[in-house]
């Protein structure tokens, strides 16, 4: 098991390395000049060269990548003799725009995405699987049709519609909730919770359909299996048959998708939700960095998101081993 885990983690590191290279080289294929952007409106050619030099853009692409790669492990110094800024390892570089180390910004924004992702994920997983199981058990009857229908409506609505609608109803019209914002949980747990209810709700509505349908179909498949008939033939109560024997087997594909979704949500894929509610998370950071041609931030956010998705996959595989004994030996 441990050897398997180590092997998987090494493979994950290689994937991240490749992703960083691809991001790096794609950036230089773009028709944009970050130095010009950093230089501002009143820019002289000498000033431009100076900035180019200080950003390291005057070196070859391979050298630049090597510097970046080295920085990940040993840290990096920026600037010239007059002003040296040291970026500690693991150094993802310093933003062209704000001159702050990218990692600091990421770590600062990370709790936002973590709160957003975890809160929503717990709800849509439990609710989605619950509805899916209910729909499967009551297949063809009213409960099934309502659950599947509601889920379909949810997924058909877009975030910017649901989000704004929720904001209008709960914040503007009836003032039940405060305007969504992010307060660190350590600072004020109540404000943290209240401020995130609507973003969570939006994400739940978006993901619920997927999980309801997924667990419904997975459950239906499992309920048709011979071992479910065996469980009934043993005289087990319906609840035990459905939850212990049925759901245990039906959960496998759900775990896979959930791992991926959670990984990408933590990594900042909830960018639309972030911007609808004006919450500044990693998603927004990533989008801004692309508009500003801010290479270190682009690289940083991409790698950050990739790390979570890759890690989520490793975790999913580990969980598989716990769920399915047949995987354990392989």
């Amino acid at each position, binding site marked *: 098991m441990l050897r398997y885990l180590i092997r998987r983690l090494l493979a994950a590191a290689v994937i991240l390395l490749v992703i960083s290279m691809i991001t790096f080289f794609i950036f230089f294929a773009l028709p944009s000049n970050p130095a010009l952007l950093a230089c501002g409106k009143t820019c002289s050619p000498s000033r431009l060269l100076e900035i180019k030099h200080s950003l390291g853009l005057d070196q070859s692409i391979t050298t630049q990548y090597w510097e970046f790669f080295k920085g990940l492990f040993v840290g990096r110094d920026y600037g010239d003799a007059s002003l040296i800024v040291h970026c500690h390892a693991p150094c993802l570089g310093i933003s062209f725009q704000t001159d702050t180390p990218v990692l600091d910004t990421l770590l600062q924004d990370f709790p936002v995405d973590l709160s957003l992702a975890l809160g929503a994920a717990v709800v849509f997983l439990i609710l989605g699987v619950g509805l899916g199981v209910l729909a499967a058990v009551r297949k063809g009857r009213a409960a099934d049709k309502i659950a599947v229908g509601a889920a379909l409506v949810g997924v058909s609505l877009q975030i910017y519609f649901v989000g704004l609608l929720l904001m209008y109803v709960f914040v503007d019209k009836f003032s039940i909730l405060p305007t969504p914002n992010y307060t660190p949980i350590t600072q004020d747990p109540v404000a943290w919770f209240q401020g995130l209810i609507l973003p969570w709700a939006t994400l739940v509505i978006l993901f619920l359909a997927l999980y309801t349908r997924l667990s419904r179909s997975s459950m239906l498949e499992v309920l048709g299996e011979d071992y479910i008939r065996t469980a009934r033939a*043993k005289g087990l109560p319906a609840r035990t048959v459905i939850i212990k024997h049925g759901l245990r*087997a039906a959960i496998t594909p759900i775990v896979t998708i959930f791992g991926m979704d959670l990984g990408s949500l933590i990594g900042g894929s909830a960018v639309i939700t972030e911007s609808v509610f004006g919450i500044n998370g990693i998603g927004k950071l990533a989008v801004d960095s692309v508009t500003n041609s801010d290479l270190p931030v682009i690289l940083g956010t991409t790698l950050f998101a990739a790390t979570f998705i890759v890690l989520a996959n490793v975790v999913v595989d580990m969980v598989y081993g716990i769920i399915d*004994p047949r995987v354990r030996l392989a």
Partner: protein
Amino acid sequence: MAIEISPQSVDVAPPSSFLEVRDLRVHFPTDDGIVKSVDGVSFALQKGQTLGIVGESGSGKSVTSAALLGLHKGSRARVSGEVWLDGDELVSMSEQDMRSLRGNKVSMIFQDPLSALHPFFTIGAQIAEAYRVHHKVSKAEARDRAVEMLKRVGIPQPERRVKDYPHQFSGGMRQRAMIAMSLVCNPELLIADEPTTALDVTVQAQILDLIRDLQEEFGSAVIIITHDLGVVAEIADDILVMYGGRRIEYGSVRDVLKTPEHPYAWGLLQSMPHLGGDVTERLNPIQGSPPSLINLPTGCAFHPRCAFKDQVPDDRCSTERPELLPVPGTDKHIAACHLTAENKIEIRSAADRLAK
């Protein structure tokens, strides 16, 4: 107050047998029509006796056995008729009451144990679970019981194997584990649904011996469902031949296998190779395919495939459904065929001459 209605209607005679099935019907409504999987099946079985139910795929064997366990309750299937087990009527019994009988008084060995056992739980846990549903015992006691059962069905090193998962067992061992699970509560009625189909011949014999030994030990009634007449000849006392969800022949194994009365039973017997037979001779399969259970052929359901329907005058085979009539000179042998006794003797002797 509403008038109390006795669940037993007046004309229902108390059953004299341990198990008595009367006019059992299991119908499944579908978009294409009603699938009559089981359509009026009756039989009786005493404790310590074995009944073999024979028929090709889709003849209603497995659906019948599922009905005996009440597994159609809560599904869309419509079950009617009566199933009397030791004084209780199972068709009208509530799911709750039925559940306490399942796996306890009545249990079932399923075919293909790899899919019938849960892949995510250990063999021991699955056997112990079956025991704990019906007995108030601790987990440790149930586990000991599981080990004991594994030992009894001949699994070596049961203390170690009890912690194994189904995929770590061989096919024969899985079927043994399945049997251990179905016997864990000492059932009085054991239904074995093609228990040896997925196994090779040597293991088949072992499993049949095991079922027989355990039956002797516990004195249970056994129903064995199969399409293998060899299995029935070896293990059963009575035989029920089903076709299209109906009974077409029923009687003691001796009577039915020695002097089968229905052309379908002849066909089943002829399609089996004989150990002493000529190896160059081709086997004689029954022509055609099983009938649609939505639209059974009129008259005798077997008539489209029957080679002897021309010997019955007036096309009766396709117009008139033959009744199950007792065979003269036998105890309980009945068959549903329009052929006269003289016809049958003639045809059988012709077939015997051919075989010799």
